[in-house]
C-alpha cells in the first residue's frame, strides 16, 4: 500500500512541477525549440533544475540495493547506442516539435478537460500500443 501512496505523491509533485514550470504549455515548448526564431530558453532551466536534484539522488541510490520501503531498486540495464534508440528518439522529437507535447505534460493537461490534449494522448496511446504489437510480432519472427 505504501508504494501506491508514494507513487501517487510523486505523480502529483511531478504534475505540479510541470505546471509551475509551464512545460505543460505547448506554445512554451515550441518557443524553446524555436532556436532560430524568437527563442525562449526558459525550459532549459526546467531540465537544469531537475538535474540539480536527480544527479545527487541517483549517486545516493547507486550505493544502495534497496529503497526506503525496502524494495529492490530497478535501474534500466541497456547501455548500447543502437539504431532503435537513435531512430526512436528522432521520431519522438519530430512529434514533440509538431504538437509541443511530450508524454508527461500531455497527461497532466488532460485535467483541463479540453479536446486537444485528449486527442493527443489517445493518439499517443495508440502509437505505443501499436509499436508494442509490432515489436512482439517482429520478435516472434526473429526468435
Amino acid at each position, binding site marked *: 500500500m505504501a508504494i501506491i501512496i508514494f507513487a*501517487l505523491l510523486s*505523480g*502529483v509533485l511531478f504534475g505540479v512541477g510541470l505546471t509551475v514550470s509551464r512545460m505543460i504549455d*505547448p506554445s512554451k515548448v515550441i518557443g524553446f525549440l524555436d532556436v532560430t526564431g524568437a527563442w525562449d530558453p526558459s525550459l532549459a532551466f526546467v531540465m537544469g533544475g531537475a538535474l540539480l536534484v536527480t544527479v545527487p539522488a541517483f549517486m545516493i541510490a547507486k550505493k544502495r540495493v534497496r529503497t*526506503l520501503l525496502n524494495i529492490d531498486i530497478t535501474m*534500466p540495464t541497456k547501455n548500447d547506442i543502437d539504431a532503435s534508440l537513435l531512430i526512436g528518439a528522432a521520431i519522438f*522529437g*519530430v512529434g514533440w516539435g509538431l504538437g509541443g*507535447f511530450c508524454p508527461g505534460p500531455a497527461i497532466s493537461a488532460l485535467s483541463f478537460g479540453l479536446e486537444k490534449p485528449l486527442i493527443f494522448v489517445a*493518439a499517443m496511446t495508440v502509437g505505443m500500443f501499436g509499436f508494442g504489437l509490432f515489436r512482439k510480432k517482429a520478435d516472434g519472427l526473429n526468435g
Partner: protein
Amino acid sequence: MENFTPIPALMGGLMIGAAATLLLWTTGRVAGISGILAGLLSRNSSNFGWRLAFIVGLMAGPFVVSKFGPGINPVKIEADIPILVIAGLLVGVGTRMGSGCTSGHGVCGIGRFSVRSIVATCVFMAAGAACVYVTNHLIVWGG
C-alpha cells in the same frame, strides 16, 4: 525573449527532480513517464498499481496548482486536430522505439550519467528543433 521565465522554470524543474527522487527512493523505479504509461497498456505488466497511481497523480498536478497554488498561466495549443493526431502517434511510437521520453532520458537518464540517455536527449531535442524550424519558418500553414 519577452517570454523568458527562468524563475518559475527553475522552481518547477526542482519539483520535477524531487518527484523523480521520491519515486526512486521509495518504489525503486525510474520516473520515465512513457515507460510507466506503456507498462499500464501491456497486459502482463508487473506493478500495475503504482503505475496507475503515478499517472493519476500526474493528472491531479494542475488541479492542485489552480486550487491551492498561484493558479495556472493560460495554455495555448496552436496545432490543430489532424496535426495533434500525427504528433501523438509519432510521440507514442518514438518513445517506445527509443525507450524513453523527456523524463526517462532527459531528467533521470542524464541524472545517472547514462551515455545512452544523453545521446537520446540530444537527438530528440535536435529533431524537435528541426521540426519547429520547418513548421515555423519554411511552411506557411494554410497559406
